[in-house]
């Protein structure tokens, strides 16, 4: 307990924190209360920085000292199991950079863009407070628990602390979540590339570029990652520049012009081929490129927002909080809280916080900076994505994100529908935006990536003006998102394959052998088939797919976050620190509530999958065709898809309820015990092993 004493703050320190608190409150008041005139994005940035600093300094420290009771004098796994490879005591800034690179992905960029339909305020508040009280708590606590348990994985900790059955249930949930993640991310790429020869060409170019890099790294200059990534970057930029020529030349453009259906099939075949090829040839080199590009682009976006200081054109709160929005259906509660997942609370992070990061921490005293601090950085990325979307003309935003079933297929029709919603826009403005970004149309490009790309392109164009540069930056942003989504699809398919082989191995042992060619192809086919099914379903969906799949993804991701936070709650009680159980317990309950209510609304009621299935079933029985189905077969397919989605939603809800049951059971048992029952690894003093840990 020696460490739980917090150092008293000096008078100057207290003054400084008081000033930060006042600045934060003032900025928040401006963005929340000013009406009628546009708010500058800098207010939002300043509010976020102030709130994150205060959260990190006070709540983060409270968790470190009181709840987790991190002890810098205790030897961490990196010291105890130092092998020079996986377990290495590493400089805290290096661990922080590695951890952030692992948790940052497409999620925090997409969710806030979709949520902007309700105005910028609801999303902003959920990101700011959700992360300080929920998301960062989850990442930090899971990291803290793992560091105390020889860097064990989330699944392992669940089995140990909640029982074997809970572990199996969570594993199943994780596999399902992964399939939905892969499908929805692949759908984002499909939406961005549909009838976009320029985008498709430059994304297609990443394949030969990666192959070239792979060969270079294998034989020409082994292991020179930075060097080869620079070469790759130059080639990528050239492919974007040449893409303009491809788009402008009809013979070339027709080679790269695909509809959503064909793109879905291309991605499915690609996913299969890419994940059975050796990793060094395609996956690894593209992974390097996408990691560096991702960090570089996030930095670029931050610089652009600060220099361009855009006005937020979206209203603070739009009329669509009532649930009638075109981007996703459902009211503010609970749908805002599952739409923005990754930027404020992301269950997926609990996998990383119990993966490589705890093996690298050189002291428990650094867990707050890496776990809590890393997640605050991620939330900042989400805030930037929200700013990029909210600084767009709202008419352009809704034209890009509403399904064609709502706004039609022409700029005239779209402009008149959107103007009726109160966001006045002319067909001319829509056509000019499309022309500026070098595309034929901007209508119905849901999925976040294209909207963010237009926002980013306009911001970057503000600080780096030039003829035709908006189009270049737009395609740069699309390429950057597509690149790391494809890497995730590829790597995720591989991980899914190992999980499926593990499960199949329980039934027939030889299938478990990951070196076996038959087992490999079989498991890969199943894995690609699973996510491919949802991707294809999304690509042909009348409402554009994102509308259907994103809520499923959000429910699944928040379900995993709820599971991770429930684990943290159980362990806190098992350590007999039940007076702090609310720290992980309240966000866990909040997420359980959100996932269950959202799941329930998707299961029964007007916006549910069940209602959609019934609508088409009734029409089919009456021999009617409902748009966009063009045949009775298509009608049948829509019914099947909606029934599958409804079943999946029910499964997620059962999973959450089961995990809640396991947690309550474990908590009641722990409360009955008079001694701590959590299974921590025994304490070893750092001083006693320091000499071993060179």
């Amino acid at each position: 307990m020696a460490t739980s004493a917090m150092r008293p703050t000096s008078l100057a320190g207290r003054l400084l924190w008081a000033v930060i608190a006042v600045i934060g409150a003032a900025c928040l008041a401006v963005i929340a209360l000013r009406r009628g005139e546009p708010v500058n994005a800098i207010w939002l940035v300043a509010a976020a920085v102030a709130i994150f600093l205060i959260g990190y300094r006070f709540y983060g420290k409270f968790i470190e000292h009181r709840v987790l009771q991190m002890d810098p004098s205790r030897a961490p796994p990196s010291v105890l199991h130092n092998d020079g490879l996986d377990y290495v005591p590493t400089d805290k800034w290096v661990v922080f950079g590695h951890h952030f690179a692992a948790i940052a992905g497409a999620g925090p960029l997409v969710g806030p863009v979709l949520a902007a339909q309700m105005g910028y305020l609801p999303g902003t508040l959920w990101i700011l407070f959700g992360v300080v009280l929920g998301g960062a708590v989850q990442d930090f606590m899971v990291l803290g628990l793992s560091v105390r348990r020889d860097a064990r994985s989330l699944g392992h900790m669940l089995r140990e602390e909640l029982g074997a059955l809970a572990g199996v249930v969570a594993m199943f949930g994780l596999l399902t979540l992964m399939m939905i993640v892969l499908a929805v991310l692949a759908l984002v790429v499909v939406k961005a590339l549909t009838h976009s020869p320029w985008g498709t060409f430059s994304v297609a170019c990443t394949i030969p570029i990666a192959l070239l890099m792979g060969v270079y790294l294998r034989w020409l200059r082994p292991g020179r990652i930075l060097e080869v990534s620079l070469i790759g970057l130059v080639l990528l930029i050239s492919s974007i520049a040449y893409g303009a020529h491809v788009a402008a030349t009809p013979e070339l453009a027709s080679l790269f012009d695909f509809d959503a259906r064909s793109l879905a099939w291309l991605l499915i075949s690609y996913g299969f081929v890419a994940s059975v090829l050796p990793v060094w040839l395609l996956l690894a080199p593209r992974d390097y490129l996408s990691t560096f590009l991702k960090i570089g682009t996030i930095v670029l976006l931050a610089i652009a927002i600060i220099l361009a200081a855009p006005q937020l054109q979206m209203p603070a709160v739009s009329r669509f909080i009532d649930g009638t929005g075109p981007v996703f259906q459902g009211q503010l509660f609970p749908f805002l809280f599952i739409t923005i997942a990754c930027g404020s609370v992301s269950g997926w992070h609990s996998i990383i916080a119990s993966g490589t990061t705890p093996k690298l921490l050189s002291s428990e005293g650094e867990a707050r900076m890496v776990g809590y601090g890393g997640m605050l950085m991620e939330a900042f990325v989400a805030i930037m994505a929200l700013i990029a979307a909210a600084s767009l003309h709202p008419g352009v935003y809704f034209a890009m994100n509403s399904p064609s079933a709502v706004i039609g297929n022409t700029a005239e029709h779209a402009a008149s529908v959107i103007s009726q919603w109160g966001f006045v826009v002319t067909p001319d403005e829509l056509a000019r935006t499309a022309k500026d970004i070098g595309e034929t149309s901007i209508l119905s490009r849901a999925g976040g990536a294209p909207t963010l790309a237009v926002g980013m392109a306009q911001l970057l164009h503000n600080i780096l003006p030039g003829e035709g540069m908006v189009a270049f930056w737009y395609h740069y942003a699309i390429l950057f998102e597509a690149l790391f989504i494809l890497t995730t699809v590829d790597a995720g398919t591989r991980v899914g394959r190992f999980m499926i082989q593990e499960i199949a191995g329980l039934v027939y042992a030889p299938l478990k052998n990951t070196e076996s060619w038959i087992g490999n192809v079989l498991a890969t086919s199943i894995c690609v088939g699973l996510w491919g099914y949802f991707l294809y379903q999304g690509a042909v969906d009348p409402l554009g797919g994102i509308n259907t799949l994103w809520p499923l993804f959000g429910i699944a991701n928040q379900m995993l976050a709820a599971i991770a936070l429930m684990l943290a709650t159980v362990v806190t009680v098992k350590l007999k620190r039940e007076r702090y159980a609310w720290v992980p317990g309240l966000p866990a309950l909040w997420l359980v509530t959100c996932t269950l209510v959202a799941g329930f609304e998707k299961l029964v009621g007007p916006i549910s999958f069940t209602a959609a299935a019934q609508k088409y079933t009734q029409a089919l029985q009456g021999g009617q065709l409902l748009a966009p189905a063009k045949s009775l077969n298509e009608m049948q397919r829509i019914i099947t898809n909606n029934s599958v989605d409804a079943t999946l939603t029910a499964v997620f809800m059962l999973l959450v309820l089961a995990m809640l049951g396991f947690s309550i059971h474990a908590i009641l048992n722990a409360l009955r015990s008079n001694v701590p029952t959590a299974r921590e690894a025994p304490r070893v003093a750092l001083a006693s092993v320091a000499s071993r840990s060179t």
Partner: protein
Amino acid sequence: MTLQKLWQRLVQTARLSCGVPDYDVYVAHLRSHHPERKIPTYAEFFRERQTARYKGTGGRCC
């Protein structure tokens, strides 16, 4: 911190983000703990790490 040191840290972070830990640290570890083992070249070390990275649970986020 000197510029050279800063650059080293940046390279180390960048490599670690791609799943390649610090080679010098590994060599030092082998020398002090397992003097009987052969020291791999950087190329061999890199290949082994590259294969190892994609076997686990992915280590990346959506």
